[in-house]
């Protein structure tokens, strides 16, 4: 793969890679660093990229692996916890908090890594199940199960939050 092909194919995926990295790392700067890091690594191994059939799935898999390595490393260094626990805000806080769209994004962010990665790869990036299966090294069935669980969890939380909002309005 020459430089023109690399820039066209790999760098064109930078936004997707960034969104994936941000979803896993939940940190803008760390996600940007991870994308830069990955692009450099891929550039160094660009000769081998000619053999790759699905460049998008390959680079996204590499991105996820790099992010998981970063999390493991940070966890070892005890800089910050691997998976933040979702602390559910009380009803009063919920009403005062941002609008529902941002709350939903937070809900997705608080899903386990695998579920939030899968739901975003499907609903944000529009990837096929077989592509997600390749990226996450799972079977298509396992991807489908995790996707369903993620969507169900978000649905439950949305309905719960909606109910609280409605009750608050009625009380007023």
């Amino acid at each position: 793969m020459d430089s023109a092909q690399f820039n066209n194919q790999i760098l064109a995926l930078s936004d997707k890679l960034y969104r994936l990295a941000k979803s896993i790392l939940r940190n803008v700067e760390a996600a940007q660093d991870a994308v830069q890091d990955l692009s450099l690594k891929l550039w160094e191994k660009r000769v081998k990229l000619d053999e790759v059939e699905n460049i998008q799935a390959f680079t996204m898999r590499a991105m996820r692996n790099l992010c998981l390595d970063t999390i493991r490393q940070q966890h070892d260094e005890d800089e910050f916890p691997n998976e933040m626990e979702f602390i559910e805000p009380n009803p009063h806080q919920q009403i005062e908090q941002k609008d529902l769209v941002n709350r939903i994004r937070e809900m997705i962010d608080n899903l386990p890594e695998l579920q939030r990665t899968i739901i975003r790869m499907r609903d944000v990036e529009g990837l096929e199940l077989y592509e997600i299966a390749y990226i996450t090294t799972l079977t298509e069935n396992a991807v489908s199960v995790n996707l369903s669980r993620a969507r169900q969890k978000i649905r439950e939380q949305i309905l719960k939050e909606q109910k609280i909002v409605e009750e608050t309005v009625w009380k007023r």
Partner: protein
Amino acid sequence: MEKMSELIEKYFRGETTLAEEITLNDYFKSGDIKAEHVVYQYLFEAFDLERNEKIEVPLKTFEVFPSRRKNIWLKTLSYSGIAAALVFALWIQRPHRSDDFAIISGKRIENQEYVKKYATAKLNKVNDILRSSMEPLQSLNKVKKAMKPLRDMPDLKNETTE
């Protein structure tokens, strides 16, 4: 609308195809949403928002410069050539000291004429000394010449015995 309710249920079970999900997305964007579905509108809105998120620091593009290495070598060669020429020029221009000199009485003398005259005078002096020291040998030569007739005479002793 009934179809949409079914599609929404299918979506949350994780069974929809990508095409069906696009249909759902279009439905929630249309503005003509059933009241009971409005709550899910925000979910699709959140996905839309994330889809438009871009990396703030754009990645640098990569390029291969095959000629750059050659240029580096060319530059190195030309710089070292210039440096060598400079050193040579400085060596040429350094304060010149002649290699033809003589040390006379502990002094460095570069004046060739003076040195020649000095050397000739010294050599003549040596010649004189040699000549005067050879004079006693001249008298030896005279004795040698005087004794020559004696050497030419036959051996008397041998002749008498015969």
